[in-house]
């Protein structure tokens, strides 16, 4: 029973990693760039919602604040692309990587200025409620995290593989020039994907803030989400979720069964192992082109 409890809490944590990893994968799938600031985006999403909802700030009702903060995050993502990332169009991917790292620093700094450095939690209607399945006791937040993550991953997967816009995004990343020839507005597609990544980061942030406290350094969690995205194979949405779940589940189990000091190494060791032995992730997207 203990193990089942560990498993569930690991899954809930893993879903948050998976959600951040989804943000990485979205942007990677559509622009071949990696947004190193995705974790900080999540932190920002959490703080925007806290700023709207919590009583010491604006004190809006939760269900009203939810769409507003997601809208703000989407707008921020779009503006980021419009004002900054789009200027790097046609430059090397390394430039985007370094730019987003710098952006992470700036976001952390600004969030610290506005909301302070104390850990804060989101006041939400699910707080403190419990769900019981047999002998298992689950916080309602954990249940919400798991359900929302699975729904979101499914929706995004369908979006990318079935809709015209989703296919256009994949095309834009696989070969920009060919995408232009086919009449895909590559730049507009990129703007849309950054907005979408902002919304996903917002959702991840809200779920994370409902589960536990956030402070400006929470964004560094993004590094664990990297492990998730790499394990799942960058570029695969279900892979990102699976990678997140693997990392999330490994953490509580290793801290329980492996000697202290070695346990926090586990996710990174797994990351290195995957990179060494299966460089394209467990859900590889690389196919050798046949001539």
């Amino acid at each position, binding site marked *: 029973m203990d193990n089942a409890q560990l498993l569930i809490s690991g899954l809930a944590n893993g879903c948050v990693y998976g959600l951040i990893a989804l943000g990485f994968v979205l942007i990677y799938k559509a*622009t*071949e760039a*990696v947004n190193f600031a995705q974790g900080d985006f999540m932190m920002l999403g959490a703080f925007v919602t806290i700023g709207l909802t919590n009583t010491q700030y604006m004190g809006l009702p939760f269900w009203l604040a939810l769409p507003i903060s997601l809208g703000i995050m989407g707008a921020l993502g779009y503006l980021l692309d419009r004002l*900054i990332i789009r*200027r*790097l*169009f*046609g*430059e090397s*991917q*390394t*430039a985007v*990587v*370094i*730019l987003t*790292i*710098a*952006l*992470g*620093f*700036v976001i*952390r*700094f*600004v969030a*610290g*200025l506005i909301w302070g*450095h104390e850990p804060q939690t989101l006041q939400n209607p699910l707080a403190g409620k419990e769900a019981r399945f047999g002998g298992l006791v689950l916080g309602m937040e954990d249940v919400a995290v798991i359900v929302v993550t699975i729904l979101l991953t499914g929706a995004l997967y369908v979006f990318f593989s079935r809709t015209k816009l989703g296919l256009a995004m994949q095309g834009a*990343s*696989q*070969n*920009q*020039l060919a995408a*232009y020839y086919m009449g895909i507005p590559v730049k507009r597609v990129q703007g849309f994907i950054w907005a979408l990544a902002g919304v996903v980061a917002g959702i991840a942030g809200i779920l994370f803030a409902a589960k536990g406290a956030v402070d*400006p350094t929470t964004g560094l969690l993004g*590094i664990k989400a*990297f*492990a998730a995205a*790499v394990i799942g194979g*960058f*570029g695969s949405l279900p892979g990102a979720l699976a990678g997140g779940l693997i990392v999330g589940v490994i953490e509580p189990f290793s801290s329980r069964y492996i000697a202290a*000091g*070695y346990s*926090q*190494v586990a996710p*990174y*060791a797994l*990351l*290195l192992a995957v*990179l*060494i032995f299966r*460089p*394209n992730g467990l859900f590889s*997207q*690389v*196919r*050798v*082109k046949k001539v």
Partner: protein
Amino acid sequence: MRIVFKTNYMQDIRPWKDRYQLSLYLILLAVVAAAPWWLDAFYLGELTNVLIWAIAGLGLMILTGHTGQVSLGHAAFLAFGCYANIALIEAGVPFLIAFPLAGILTGIAGVTVAIPALWLHGIYLAIFTMALSILMDDIIVLSEPITGGVAGKYVGGVEIFGHLVDRWGTPDQFFWLVLIVTVLVTLGYINLLRAPLGRSFIAVRDSEVSAQAMGIDIARTKMISFALSCAVTGWAGALMGLFAGAFNNETFSVLISIQLLMMIVIGGLGSIHGAFLGAIVIGFLPQFLSISKEYAGALFGGNTVAIPGLEFGIFGMILIAFILFEPMGLYGRWLKIRTWFELFPFYRKDMFKRQKSYLRTERLR
């Protein structure tokens, strides 16, 4: 406008363009070497710090600037060099042997890392090295008998020919020690770039396919680049340890790795000058911020509370501005200004225009 007449093929591969340029650099070296006489103790310490960062920047520049492999984990090699140096000294090896050996050991560690990293490209390599840098923290804690774990290590001075060189006791000598290492590393770097090996680094950076077509063994080149880069970084780490005097597992965090990469981007990727210019920015930014905060406090009524994260926030903004407006860094800006004067009035706006390329996925090959 100065025109260099070339009368000899050797002039193209000589480390300096002409005597004028050579004499400029010699004057600069003389002025810096005389720093203990025209700088007070505090700023001499800062200058030493800048030089150490410059060595570390040169180390990363070999890998990232000239071979095109982005590493977000060089703090791990800083740490390795630092601990290797101290461990050797504590084992009774004299400093003059321990110090080069620390660099060589770091180079070997770098090659060990490079072997699995060889088939990782761009972003994957960056993530790989970043994970390595995070793991280094735990590795240092776990190998406590050598590293002192969380409690860390303290170093006094080091003995060179029976003479004690110490950061606090004899800052002048320590500065000269760092300066000598800097000059040696820089000369080595200049010569590397003249040699076939350095040229093959640049070829690999610019196009792996073309490099292969020219008969360059890519895996071998990358491995040597890793080794050289890590060795130089290891020396920087050893000096950093001596400079700090005390260090533990958190001294060389992943943030240092990121800072190092940002430093060479600000300075200018792919140039030796870039490492030095970036180090100057990194070294003096905290001082500059605290001084300007004092001024602002005096102007707007005594509000000098420390703002946490200010340094990194400002640093991030500077970096974003550089990537957007001057991707070639400070050295690139200097080149443009110099060319403007040299060619006056024939400078054109598009002289330094960068080639843009359409993106293709790395996933489908």
